[in-house]
């Protein structure tokens, strides 16, 4: 099954190539090709997740090809195209498969240059898989940049601007802000990769090789922040999160789903996979800072979300808040906390994807996103309202849904690591989350029916199906988290410097 991991990168790349060959007037052909590719990625991701043997938590599905050798200063093996999946990457690979599969359904109605849209979307998906699966730092960085680059056009061309009355946040602004923030973050990563490579002196960018070296304490303390901040920008690390609401709101539905659902996880994944596993002492030194920033983000995001009237901005800020939990989990430096962080990556991925999908579904019909102008929508859109309710309840941590499992792990980890104040503030943030979610449900979907929106119809069948897939995984993880916990815990327990 070694090909499965390779295929998750080859399929999106091949899809992008295939789509280029299709004349752009055949919009339906383009859609079905995208659907085929999306479903095969979903199946491949399920296979990878299911077949991953979690006995020892090591790498599986390994594939290593020579890519660039014979360069004196790159060492004997040079750069290799090294792919593998471990217990941390496996759930995230599954997440990517789920979100792209659902995302294709949500993008079904795009008419304007839908071929170009899907080409860029699949390039981005290829990049995302690449980051989760690359074990060679060169390629990890390669795919990281590849995942960011198509965002500019995806947002700027297919996105939407938001009018705040006194000023307009244009989609060009959101796109440029997002790309520049993320690439600025990657500057730090780039520098730290060079420094690590030279310091290790192993002549290899391979993570297992780099991980076998013990770095000097000062070196770790100097360069861990590079990875923490560089990857942290993408993970919505406060105070570098401001690209996230603006960018996600401006983006078209499927792109917001993928970006908030999956791409933000690349950041947290990078901190864990590169920063913490290479520099455990540096991570321990900086953990209080990461914890503080994480809690601040969780609280700040929740409070900001409460101030929003625009549905999409509310979801955008709730992403910042939930990613704050992920960073808190990482900062605990103990097994249960990091388990929780990875669980939260998955849980937040599916539920935020569902929320953005639902925002898109209503925006396509109503061309408005202000929650206060709606009212009682559950009367003519009952399924839509119930999907919102599931996503919202999972987001506020209702037991039985995915969010609870993850947040529970994180809070236990936080208290175990003696960050009692942080745990308390985190729980406060969860309470605020409950407030804004329930308030939103009350405004838009329940209460007196607003006749202005009587013409709104139930979601399209494709949207219902895409949403149902996401709901299935929210409930599945909420009720039976073992398949996830087994895989994650096996690998997390192997990380250095974890108590």
């Amino acid at each position, binding site marked *: 099954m070694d090909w499965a991991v390779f295929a998750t990168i080859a399929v999106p790349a091949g899809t992008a190539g295939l789509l280029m060959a299709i004349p752009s007037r055949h919009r339906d052909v383009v859609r079905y090709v995208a659907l085929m590719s999306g479903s095969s990625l979903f199946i491949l991701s399920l296979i990878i997740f299911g077949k991953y043997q979690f006995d020892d938590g090591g790498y599986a599905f390994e594939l290593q090809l020579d890519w*660039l050798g014979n360069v004196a200063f790159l060492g004997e093996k040079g750069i290799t195209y090294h792919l593998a999946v471990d217990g941390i990457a496996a759930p995230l690979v599954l997440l990517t498969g789920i979100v792209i599969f659902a995302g294709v359904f949500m993008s079904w109605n795009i008419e304007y240059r839908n071929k170009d849209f899907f080409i860029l979307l699949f390039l981005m998906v290829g990049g995302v898989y690449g980051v989760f699966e690359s074990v060679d730092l060169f390629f990890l960085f390669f795919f990281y940049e*590849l995942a960011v680059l198509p965002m500019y056009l995806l947002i700027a061309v297919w996105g939407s601007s938001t009018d705040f009355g006194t000023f307009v946040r244009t989609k060009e602004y959101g796109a440029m802000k997002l790309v520049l923030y993320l690439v600025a973050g990657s500057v730090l990563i780039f*520098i730290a990769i060079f420094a690590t490579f030279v310091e290790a002196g192993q002549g290899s960018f391979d993570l297992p090789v780099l991980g076998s070296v013990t770095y000097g304490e000062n070196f770790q303390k100097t360069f861990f922040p590079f990875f923490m901040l560089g990857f942290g920008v993408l993970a919505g690390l406060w105070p570098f999160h401001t690209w996230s609401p603006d960018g996600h709101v401006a983006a078209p539905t499927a792109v917001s789903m993928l970006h908030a659902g999956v791409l933000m996880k690349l950041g947290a994944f990078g901190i864990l996979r590169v920063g913490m596993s290479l520099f455990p002492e540096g991570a321990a030194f900086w953990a209080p800072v990461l914890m503080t920033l994480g809690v601040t983000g969780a609280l700040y995001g929740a409070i900001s979300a409460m101030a929003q009237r625009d549905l999409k901005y509310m979801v955008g800020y709730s992403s910042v808040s939930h990613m704050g939990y992920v960073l808190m989990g990482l900062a605990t430096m103990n097994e249960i906390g990091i388990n929780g962080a990875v669980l939260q990556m998955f849980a937040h991925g599916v539920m935020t994807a569902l929320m953005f999908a639902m925002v898109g579904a209503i925006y396509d019909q109503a061309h408005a996103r202000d929650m206060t102008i709606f009212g009682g929508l559950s009367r003519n859109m009952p399924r839509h309202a119930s999907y919102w309710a599931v996503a919202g309840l999972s987001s506020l941590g209702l037991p039985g849904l995915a969010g609870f499992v993850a947040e529970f792990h994180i809070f236990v980890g936080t208290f175990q690591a003696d960050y009692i104040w942080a745990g308390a503030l985190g729980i406060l943030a969860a309470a605020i989350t409950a407030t804004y979610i329930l308030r939103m449900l009350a405004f838009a979907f329940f209460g007196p029916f607003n006749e202005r929106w009587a013409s709104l119809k139930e979601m399209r069948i494709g949207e219902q199906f895409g949403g149902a897939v996401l709901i299935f995984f929210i409930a599945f993880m909420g009720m039976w988290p073992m398949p996830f916990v087994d895989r994650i815990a096996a690998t997390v327990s192997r990380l250095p410097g974890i108590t």
Partner: protein
Amino acid sequence: MNLDWSLLAPEYVLAGWAAMLVSVDLFWGRLRKDWLGYLAAAGALASTLTSLIWLNDDTNFANLIEVNNYTTFFRVFFGLIGVFACVASARFVKDRLLHPGEYYALILLTVIGGSYMAAARELLTAYISLELLSFSLYVLTSYAKFDLRSNEGGLKYMLLGAFSSAIFLFGMSLIYGVTRTTQFEGIHEVLTGDTSGFELTLFLGLVLIIAGLGFKVAAVPFHMWTPDAYEGAPLPVTALISAISKAGGFALFLKLFAMAFLPLVDDWRLFLAGLSAATMLLGNLVAIQQHNIKRLLAYSSIGQVGYLLMGIAALSADNADAASALVLHLAGYVISNLAAFVCAIIYFNWTEKDEIADYDGLAERAPFLALALSISLFSLAGMPLFAGFVTKFILFQAAVEEDLLWLASIAVFTSFVSLYYYLVVVKHMYLGEPEEPTRFPTPWVEYAALAVLLIGVFLVGLGPQPLFNAVQDSTAFIFTGAEAAATVGAGP
């Protein structure tokens, strides 16, 4: 002394072809002028093929010109630049310029100049080749006779060029005064020995040579001519300057410093590193404010010179592959930059416009061109899939290897800055409203040339190994003595 004149055959081909083009234009006036361009391209291609005869050879002509893989690599490289420059010029020159025969002849002469800058093994030959390249470019820059900006650009280029040549010559004379030889290998030998008492002279000589070459490759603070010359010159000539004068300059720069001045590396490393940092910062930061595509590419190419200088600053006896990294990035840069310029030329042929704001809505009117320009700009910015990412990664790594992490950090930061101004162009193409919704007619020849360049961008970006091996085979010849032994041993 080896007087085997046949070693110069590729340049005979070029010179003969140049003379033929002038006479064809003179005596067969009815020949369509764009065919003259394709004929010139055929000449450049013929010389490229001829130069392959000496592949893997190692010999020299009268100790002046050496013919080995380094020379062959650059003969092929410059020959191909000539091919693309001629093809890209064809329609432009037919519609806009007088005297096409001389125009193409001059392009072929720049190829000779560039090749001999790589092939020279002593200072005076290098200088003469440099002047051959420069003079042809001075004339070409002011080729649009009735365009004031073209004349202004040409004059600035020539005056500053002459000034820098004088500086270069003065530096050479100081070096000669100490070493009593103009041969690169001889200089290396003397410098390896005891040079006490001459430190100041040598340092002054080095500084002057760096300043002179810095003018040619447009390193800060010697870059002032670049934006005006780029903007004034006819577009295909701008493309040629950005490709061949940079590449030729660096072929010589690299060879001179690896072959002759490597023993003094401690004297010039930090100096060049500082120059490199200033160049990439200024080039990339000033580029942000530009609203003309030629000036934008001019400043971005200054930024690229900063990256290339890193490669020289990273040279050392046990880091010989820094030279390969430099040449690899040079190749990647030239391919991407030529692709960007071919796009600009095609657009100019349609609309006679070259402001960035004029590119509004290009994606609607010519999707392929918009895609191609985006790809070339992203490659210049160093984005993955494209050549720029790999070549920059390797080049920066080479610098870090010599403890220049600070320099690499500046380079990474400025690449990030460059992404911004390239994205602005992309924004205009994909988000702007086109003036009219009609499609442009397809220029097949130019599109074919563009497609070849784009394939190159992807090939280097996705599988750089073959090109890297070729580069490594060639740069192995520019090290002398002990360093050469170290280089050969570095292979697998």
